[in-house]
C-alpha cells in the first residue's frame, strides 16, 4: 500500500532532545529560530509510506550459522539473531518504508550552504517528522494485522542489532520504494532522501508483551484506525 499521511504537528520537545537539549534556558531569538524551522519543515515535508505484509515461510540457519526468517512471495530474508528474536513466533511480517521527501533533502542542502544553525535545527525537525511518519505507517500495518486477527510487536530497522544494512536493497525493491517514494540508495547503503526509514514489524497470533498496555502512550495513537471501530490492537 502506498499512503500519504497528514501530519500537522511535530513534538517540540523531541526536536530539542535531538539537539542535546537538557533544559537550558535559551533566548527568545533562538526559540524563534527553532519554531520557524519546525514550521518550515512541516510545510516542506511530504510524509509518505509504502508497506506490504508477507507471511513467514520458514526459519533456519545459514551455513555459517546466521539465523534467517524466510518470507513467502519475496526474496527478502531477515537475517541475524536480532531478527530471530524479534520475529520469534511471528506468522507474518509487515515491511515498510517511509520518507518525508526530496524537498526536505533539498532544504537541508540549501541550509548546509547558507545557514548552519538552521541546518542543525531543521535536521532535528526532519528527523522528528520522519519518525512520526514511520509511526503512521506502522499504524497501518498494525491495523492490517488486526483485520487478520494478528497482534503486532514494534518496528525494527536494518542497521540496528545485527540486522544487516545489506537488507536495504532487497527490502526497498520488495516494496518498489524507488518508484513509489523516490527512495534511492548509495553504494554504502545509505538512503537518499536521508530522512527516510525502513523497518519490519512482526505479526503474531498472540498478544505481544511489547504491545502498549493502554492507547495513551502508543506512538501510533494519532494514526490508529482500529480505535474508531470500538476495538484496540490488543483485541
Amino acid at each position, binding site marked *: 500500500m502506498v499512503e500519504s499521511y497528514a501530519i500537522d504537528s511535530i513534538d517540540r520537545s523531541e526536536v530539542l532532545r535531538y539537539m542535546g537539549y537538557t533544559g537550558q534556558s535559551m533566548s527568545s531569538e533562538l526559540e524563534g529560530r527553532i519554531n520557524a524551522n519546525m514550521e518550515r519543515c512541516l510545510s516542506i515535508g511530504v510524509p509518505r509510506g509504502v508497506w506490504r505484509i508477507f507471511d513467514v515461510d520458514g526459519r533456519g540457519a545459514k551455513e555459517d550459522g546466521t539465523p534467517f526468517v524466510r518470507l513467502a512471495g*519475496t526474496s527478502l530474508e531477515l537475517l541475524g539473531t536480532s531478527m530471530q528474536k524479534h520475529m520469534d513466533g511471528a506468522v507474518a511480517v509487515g515491511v515498510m518504508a517511509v520518507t518525508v521527501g526530496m524537498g526536505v533533502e533539498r532544504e537541508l542542502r*540549501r541550509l548546509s550552504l547558507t545557514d548552519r544553525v538552521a541546518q542543525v535545527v531543521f535536521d532535528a525537525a526532519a528527523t522528528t517528522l520522519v519518525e512520526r511518519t514511520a509511526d503512521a505507517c506502522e499504524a497501518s500495518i498494525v491495523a492490517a494485522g488486526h483485520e487478520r486477527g494478528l497482534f503486532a510487536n514494534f518496528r525494527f530497522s536494518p542497521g540496528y542489532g545485527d540486522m544487516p544494512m545489506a537488507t536495504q536493497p532487497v527490502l526497498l525493491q520488495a516494496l518498489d520504494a524507488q518508484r513509489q517514494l523516490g527512495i534511492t540508495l548509495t553504494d554504502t547503503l545509505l538512503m537518499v532522501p536521508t530522512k527516510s526509514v525502513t523497518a519490519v514489524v512482526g505479526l503474531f497470533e498472540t498478544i505481544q508483551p511489547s504491545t502498549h498496555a493502554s492507547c495513551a502512550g502508543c506512538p501510533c495513537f494519532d494514526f490508529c484506525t482500529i480505535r474508531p471501530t470500538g476495538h484496540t490492537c490488543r483485541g
Partner: protein
Amino acid sequence: MSAKSPAQGDSRWPKDRLVLRSRRVRDEHLAAVLRGEEFLLFDGAMGTQLQARGLAAGELPELLCLTNPAEIREVHASYVSAGAEVVTTNTFGANAAKLGDAASVEHVFSAAVACAREAGARYVAADLGPTGQLLEPMGPLPFDDAYDLFAEQVRAADAAGADLFVIETMTDLAEAKAALLAVRENSDLPAFVTMTFGEDGRTFLGTTPEAAAVTLSSLGADAVGINCGLGPAAVAPLVKRMLPWASCPVMAQANAGLPHVVDGVTTYDVGPEEYAAAVADMLDAGVTVFGGCCGTTPEHISRERELLTGRMPAARHVHDSFAVSSAQAICSLDYGQVGVIGERINPTGKRLMKEALRSGDHDYVMNMAIEQGRAGAQILDVNAGLPEIDERAVMCQLVSELQGVSTLPLQIDAADPAVIEAAVRSYPGKALVNSTNGKAQTMADVLPIVKHYGCAVVGLTLDEDGIPATAEGRLAVARKIVRECEQLGIPRHDVVIDCLTMAASTDQTQPKAILDAIRLVKQELPGVRTVLGVSNVSFGLPFRPLVNGTFLAAAFSAGLDLAIINPCLTRMMDVVDSWRVLSGEDESAQYFVANYAERSDRSPAQALPVEKAAASSAAASAVTPATPAEPADPAARARELVLAGRKGPMPEVVAQVIAEHDPMYAINEVLIPALDVVGERFEKGVFFLPQLMASAEAAKAGFETIKAAVDASGQGDNVPEKGSIVVCTVHGDIHDIGKNIVRMLLENYGYNVIDLGRDVPPQVVVDAVVKDHVLLCGLSALMTATVPAMAETIELLRKEAPWCKVVVGGAVLNPEYAEMVGADFYAKDATETARIASEVLG
C-alpha cells in the same frame, strides 16, 4: 564531491557531422510518428503481469529474459495481439550497477530484444529505467558515471537490434538528460523520454512538466511525456501542460489508477473503459503516443487501439516564447514581456567575489544567488573567469552547488568553449549560454555546443572587425549570427542578441545607436530576442545609477527583452517594475500596487540598496526596548552578543570596538575570550548545540567586520595567519552536519578551513592536504559502514602527506575506533576539535 566533467578536449560527440545527422528510423510510419502526423501505441505493464505470474517481490525481473524467456515472450505477445505496435523490452533495471554479477548488460539486452522481436513486435523499444542511485549534487552518483551506465545499455541495445529507445520513469531531470545524451552520442535511433510526476504536479525531485518538456525537447528527444505514478485522469492535466512546451510529439503511459492489495494480491482500480476515457481526453488535446504503465493489461491496450483507429492527431500549438529552465521550473518570456538576469556572480571588478572564488569559499556566491532571486532576478549569470583559478572546475562546482540553493535557470558566462561545454553538459535544465559573437571561429566553436545540449544563446554584435559603430552595422552582425544558428537548427526564439552597451561619456552618439540597433533587430529578425548589460553606459559619469535607470527605460521602450543588471539595486528594479505597468505586462498593475503603495521619494531610507536597508533595520532592532539591558562599553556588548548568539547588531558593535581599540584587540581580547566561555558552557551542558552554533555565528559576523576593516585599511599583514585545516565527511558518507559545526567553530578561531564537503574520495583529501602543505586534517564519519573509508583516507595521508596530523570524529567513533583507524586525535565534539587545532597549529 564536485561535478566531474570530461577531460579537456574529450568531447563524446562528433561536432562536425552532428547537425545534419539524421535518425535511423525503421519505416515511414515511425517517421510520420516522429513528425507528429500519426499515432503510436506502446504496450502496457510488464512488472504487474510478471507478478501475476508469480515473480517474487525483490527479485530482478530483467533476469527472466535469460532464465525464462518464454514467459517474457508470452507477455509481449499478449500486448501485440491487443494491438500494441511497440513492445518495450524487459530491461527497466538492466544496468551494470543493478545487475552486478548476476548477468552482463549485453546478455540481458540481447535476450530481451530477442524476446520482443520473437513476440511479433512491429517496433522494439529498448527500455532504460533509472540507475537506482541519486545523482550529484543531492546524491553521490557523478553525472558522468550515470552517463556511462546508460551508454553501456545503449550500445548493447543498438547492437541487439532495437528500433528505438524509451527512457522512462525518470524523476531527476539530470538523470533523464544523462540517459538522453547517452542515446544521442552512442546511437542514431530515436529516443522517447518520459518522467514520473506526483499529485502535486512535480517529480520527486521537483521538476515540473514544463521544465521537463522544455529541457528534453530542446535536447533532442523525439518524444517527451509522462509515465507511471498516477492514473490516467491525473496524468491528463499534467501532460497537457507539456504540450505547448514540447517541440516534439508528446506521450502518455499512465498507471491503471492506484494499487490496492486485495487478499494479498496487488490490483489496480482503473479498468479499460475508464482508462480509455481519459486517453480520449489526452488525444483531443494533442497527445499522439500512448501505451500503459503499472497495472495496465492487454485489455487496456486493446481499448486504446480501438480509440486510435480512424483518428487523426489533433492540432497542437507550440509556444515560440523564449524559454530556459532549471531542474525545477522554466523562465519564459512572451513577446512584450521583459526579464531580469542577475549579474552579480561575476568576479570582474568585484573584490569580494574574486576572493570567494579564489579561496573556494562559495558561501558568499550562494548567498549572492539567494539575494538576487529575492530581489527579482529570473535568470542568474554565472561567471568564474579569473586567470588564477581553474575556471572549468570552479564553473562546474558553482553550477552544481547553485542547484542546491536556487531554482532559477542559469546563464553560463564564459569565453572558453570547453568551460561552456563542461557546464551545460551536466546542467539539469536548459541553460542560456553567454556567449557567441559574429566571429566565424567563435560561432564554429560555440554554436554546435549550444545545439547539441539544447541551450539558448546570447549573440554579441561584434565580429572580426570589432563592434560596429552604427545600428545597421550591429544588425548585420546579428543577421549573420541568426543565419548561422538557423543552419544548425537553433530556432530564433533561442537566440538573444546583445547590441553591446558603450559609454556615453566617450561617444554620445552610442546610446542612440544601441537603442536603434535593438529596434532594428526586433524588426528585421522577428522571433529573435535582445539582451543588454546596461551599466557600462554611465561609465565616467557621476550619479551612475540614475543614468543606468534612464537608459534601461529607453532600452525597454526600444524593445529590449532581457536586462542584465544587479537586481539588488532598488533603482534598477524600480525601472523594471514600473515598465511592466506601462507595457501592460503587470496586468492591472497588481504587482506594482502591492509592492509600491507605501513607496515615495520622500523617504531616502527606502531608496537604499536591499542590504543596507536590512542592516539598518537590524541596527534599529538592536536598540528596541525588548532587548535586555546592554552594557554601554562596546567590547562588553560584543562579548554579550557572542554569548547570547545574536549576530544582527554585531557588525555595528564590533566597528565601535575597532574604533576605540584596534582589530587585534577586538579579536584577542573580545571575540576569542567570549568564544572560550561559550565552549566552556557547552562542555558543562549550560549551552546546548544550537546555542553553541548561534554564538559561533555571531562571532563570525564580528570577524567579518574586522576583516573588512583590516582589508580596507591595508594593514592585512598585522593579522597573523593561524594556518589551514582540511575538513570533510569521508567517502561514502553523506552526512555533513557534524563537519559543518566543526568548520564553523574552527573558522571562528581564525583558522583557514578548507571544506571539501561530503562523500570525499581519499585521493581528493590527500591532494588538498598536499597542495597547501596543510598540517591538520579533520575527518568525519557517521556510519559504521563508512569507517573503513576513514581508515583508507588516513592510510593514504600517511603515505603521501606524512606531516599531516589527523583528527577524527562522528557519531560512530570513540577513542578506540579512532586509534584503530590510525588517527592522531579523537574529538568528541567541535570544541574539542578547536582545542586540538590549537595544540597542533598554535
